[in-house]
């Protein structure tokens, strides 16, 4: 059996759970898939999962699971895993999964393979493909030391609409025995920093600048191109980390998600955390001096070359 750990917040299912289910179906072959979800008062989410008929749903419902903490999740899930003895435990590679899955796997001393983009084969002999070296290479990885094998699935690597649906599955509650004193983290309510002054999600065109720009003094190279294209200026994370542009212009998993008509990536390598924020753009242009940069995997048009030559040439051409 393959056990999928679903994720919800305040009773809303994280949509990446569907992608994890699709990956689990690929891994299962003829084997069964089951789903576990933890929280408090989450019947509606459990029903939503059961209605898809992808596998029976086990609910861990307890007041101590009302808000997420890594300690509570590790304790509650460990009990289910030890009881149901799945061959694999599959998660979406969300920030929450990053926070507790390594502790869970480490406590059980079982392998954890993270950020998986492809499943090769089924069952115990399956291997997993995952990026290494910032996406410059893909590794085929084989777990060692027996199951259950923990696997986290990269967001966007499997398509949710490929889910094979079945008839409505069962929902059962599993007992939770959680000693509140074993939970060492005390979380406060999630919040957003002051509302962004620019809503990049509404921009029809975006020029995003990455570390290839080298220094803050060179930013006008990108600004001029943005102006000539009638585009908003955005950036990859390191540009905002350095304080060269405000955080609110950051695109990616920790910044904004955009899908403009045109997205021009200038000196951006195309790390997955950046790609998830922009790969829905209608037309993507990549300008990068490295022909092997991962950004070219999602680009419609690419120019391999020096942005300091190409951006001004584009401005000149647009102004003709």
């Amino acid at each position, binding site marked *: 059996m393959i056990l999928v750990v679903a994720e919800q917040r305040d009773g809303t299912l994280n949509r990446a759970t569907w992608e994890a289910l699709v990956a689990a179906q690929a891994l299962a072959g003829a084997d069964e898939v089951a789903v576990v979800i933890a929280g408090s008062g989450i019947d509606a989410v459990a029903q939503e999962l059961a209605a898809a008929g992808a596998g029976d749903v086990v609910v861990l419902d307890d007041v101590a699971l009302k808000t997420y903490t890594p300690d509570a999740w590790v304790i509650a899930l460990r009990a289910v895993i030890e009881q149901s003895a799945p061959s694999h435990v599959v998660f979406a590679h969300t920030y929450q999964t990053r926070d507790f899955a390594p502790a869970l796997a480490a406590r059980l001393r079982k392998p954890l393979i*993270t950020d998986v983009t492809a499943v090769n084969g089924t069952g115990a002999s399956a291997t997993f493909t995952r990026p290494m070296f910032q996406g410059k*290479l893909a590794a085929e990885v084989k777990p060692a030391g027996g199951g259950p094998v923990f696997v986290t699935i990269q967001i966007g690597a499997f398509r949710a609409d490929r889910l094979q649906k079945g008839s409505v599955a069962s929902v059962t509650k599993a007992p939770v025995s959680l000693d509140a004193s074993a939970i060492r983290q005390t979380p406060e309510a999630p919040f957003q920093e002051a509302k962004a002054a620019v809503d990049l999600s509404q921009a029809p065109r975006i020029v995003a600048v990455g570390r290839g720009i080298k220094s803050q003094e060179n930013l006008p190279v990108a600004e001029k191109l943005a102006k000539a294209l009638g585009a908003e200026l955005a950036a990859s994370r390191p540009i905002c980390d350095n304080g060269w542009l405000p955080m609110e212009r950051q695109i990616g998993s920790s910044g904004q998600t955009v899908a403009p008509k*045109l997205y021009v990536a200038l000196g951006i390598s195309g790390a997955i955390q950046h790609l998830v924020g922009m790969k829905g753009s209608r037309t993507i242009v990549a300008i990068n001096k490295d022909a*092997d940069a991962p950004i070219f995997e*999602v680009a419609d048009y690419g120019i391999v070359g020096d942005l300091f030559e190409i951006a001004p040439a584009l401005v000149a051409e647009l102004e003709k």
Partner: protein
Amino acid sequence: MKIAVCIKQVPTREWQPRLRDDKTWIREADVSYEMNEPDAYALEEALRLREKHGGEVVVCSAGPARVQQVIREALARGADRAIHVEDDSLAAADAFVSAGALASAMADETFDLVLTGLQSDDQGHGQTGVVLAERLGIPHSTIIMEVQIDPSTSSGQAGSLRVKRELEGGWFQWIAMPLPALLTIQSGINQLRYATLKGIMAAKKKEIRKASLPAGLQPSQQIVALAMPARSKQTHLIGGSAGEAAKELVRLLRDEARAL
């Protein structure tokens, strides 16, 4: 405050991958290395906490002899001393082995706070910090963008922490927990400082304690093959001089993509 910072040495960003003949690891001979980026932010955070609360900052790194380069760099930036778990097999170790190696070398030190980066730029497991917390038996939190310490001790507690954790899509959350604890630090938490000449000179005299790899650490995964990633999209690559390429791209954006 006794603070540990785990630092990994990784290939530089400019490095172009070249594979070893067996295609299960990179050709290390022609790689130049640097400090893993989030680890540099973790080090900076540790130095700032020491400035505020006193104490010492100890750099911990597991890897072959070559990782001394980043250890020296961290000492030059201001860390007080270092622990180096030295073994050639650590060059390509998985997160369980790296965390096990670090945990055994750190066990006797009883750190109040352990900082790691959230992810390595080479293998990118995003696990080692959390596994290390588990092995050290201390609470953790991940993807941290701010650290507040209340050093006041009460009922046998070594003080407490309040940290700002990054969630997806621009959301954050504060989390409190007792010390000792482990945090995985996100890039951008602070502004980095670089080594001064004085720091580089002082680093030469700082202690690097060597520790050996403990026996019995079993790998939890094995790389069967490394390759260039498969392309999912057929990119229309535009060649020629900068001027020619610009002209052709603008034409395509106007006539084919209708994006202008």
